[in-house]
């Protein structure tokens, strides 16, 4: 379920990490969470899912994370492998939507990659739009989620949201008023 505050260790990757690198095309016929999870990032970080097992990790990336193919397998694989959130300078737009739809928090924050190192502990406050870094302790703010997206994320993703409301107009109508 939705947690407004997420803590974890930083797993750093670079710029333009495309969805083929996050989840290779040769496994797109798979659908079960456990069989998807093992292939997360496999072409760029061997045994990624084993490496992050047992601890809370947050991926920190440069620009355009998740560019390329529309495959929802990409955020699903990361989520199923245990990734708690992703902070990047920018995201491929389909990946960004897909991540929220599967209930994986994604946060846009400039320069995050320069301010963190592999294994650093960070804390994300989704409600307030703040990331806490430690040693020395400091906070970076990020643009808060629009109410619409937060509402999908709070439901635990679009499946639970649709199960509950069955339509979008409920949400948008309320905001219009």
């Amino acid at each position: 379920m939705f947690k407004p505050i997420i803590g974890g260790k930083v797993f750093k990757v670079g710029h333009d990490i495309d969805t083929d690198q996050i989840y290779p095309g040769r496994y797109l016929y798979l659908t079960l969470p456990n069989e998807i999870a093992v292939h997360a990032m496999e072409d760029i970080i061997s045994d990624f899912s084993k490496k992050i097992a047992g601890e809370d990790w947050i991926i920190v990336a440069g620009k355009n994370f998740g560019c390329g193919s529309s495959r929802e397998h990409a955020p699903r694989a990361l989520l199923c492998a245990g990734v708690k959130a992703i902070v990047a300078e920018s995201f491929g737009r389909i990946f960004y939507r897909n991540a929220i739809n599967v209930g994986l928090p994604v946060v846009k924050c400039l320069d995050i990659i320069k301010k963190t190192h592999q294994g650093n502990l960070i804390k994300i406050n989704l409600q307030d739009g703040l990331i806490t870094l430690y040693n020395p302790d400091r906070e970076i703010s990020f643009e808060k989620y629009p109410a619409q997206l937060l509402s999908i994320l709070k439901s635990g993703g679009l499946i639970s949201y649709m199960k509950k409301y069955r339509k979008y107009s409920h949400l948008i109508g309320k905001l219009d008023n």
Partner: protein
Amino acid sequence: MHPIYQILSRASKRNSVKPGEFIVVNVDLAEVNDLYLQVLLSFKEMGGDRVWNPKKITFVMDHYAPAPTIRAAENQRKMREFASEQGIYNFFDINRGVCHQVMPEAGLIWPGMVLVATDSHTTTHGAFGAFSTGIGATDMAAVLLTGKIWFKVPEIIKINIQGRIGKGVMAKDIILHIISQLGTDIALYKAIEFDGETVKEMSLDERLVLCNMSVEMGAKATYIRPDEKVREYLIDVNSGKYKEYKMMKFADDENSKDYESVYDFDISNLEPQIALPHRVDNVVPVSQAKGKPIQQALIGTCTGGRMNDIKIAAQILKDKKISPSVRLLIVPASHKILQKCIELGYIQTLLNAGAALVTPSCGPCLGAHEGVLSSGESCISSSSRNFPGRMGSKEAKIFLSSPATAAASSIKGVITDPREFL
């Protein structure tokens, strides 16, 4: 108001929309491909029983055509069963081709419509004046349930292209050049409009390449103002929809305030271009990549497998043989294109030259089957992406080019300037 905003206003039943606004739009067509059984799984998990409107939904079996594994075959079977139960009659099976060619050919694409599809290259249909974008499986499940989707209204970038296209230069070269200048994230969350004399003179096939590759700059959607060429095409495939479009009376107003930014390109002296591994914006003129050995050449897919593309390949390979060290794969974008190419003798020419013909589909572009690469191999390809591991081994290299450059390179076994053969 820009035509993109007019389309989004109509679809969201508003008088106007502004960039940055969240809107919920009615979808005119939703397309699901065979990669994403997750669409049906999410639909069921949402409590979905009947789809909102079977007439506005289409399935295309194109990424695994024909099925390479038992699991892929099971997924396709479940999709066939679902479509049949739901009365979705626009079901295009593994014999039809890539969705981005099959849908326009079937008359399902028209100016002013809103199209969503589970494929990132859905930006292609901006070439017909449609608002079209790629979405993921669960987003699509919600569309099947409700007929609606939320969008943040995008800002619009205008790209003007001027200048006469040189011999041996194709739309693919132009868009690779543009991507190299503007970068892979210039259009993130934004739409791109293409305009200018060069675009107006281009055939629809060529315009489709510009719009198709725009997603490699991050674009959400694209737009080219529909003209006589779109009208002729549409009257041929779906004259009723053309009349409907005319009825909508989209104002053709030019307002510079609608653009977040404007870029001008003069392509008069452009050489054929090559995107070197492993980035689509890692582009050099062919003169700087010449002589690099290749083991596979791919001409086809939703980016480079249309009539225009196969015609030039046949022109270059006529009465020639490909290098014994090269495998040349021809993947027409659709069954219709394949048939027409057979009629016109192009396929015979290509087979005589030593090409292997692959079922009209996405082919090996996404590394699923039908010609994946081994480690250490290099491929020159008219497809869209050269990411690591995209077409098989992560130790393989993909060079992106026009179909003409891929054809010329297959003769010599090394990257070759197509102008040597034209």
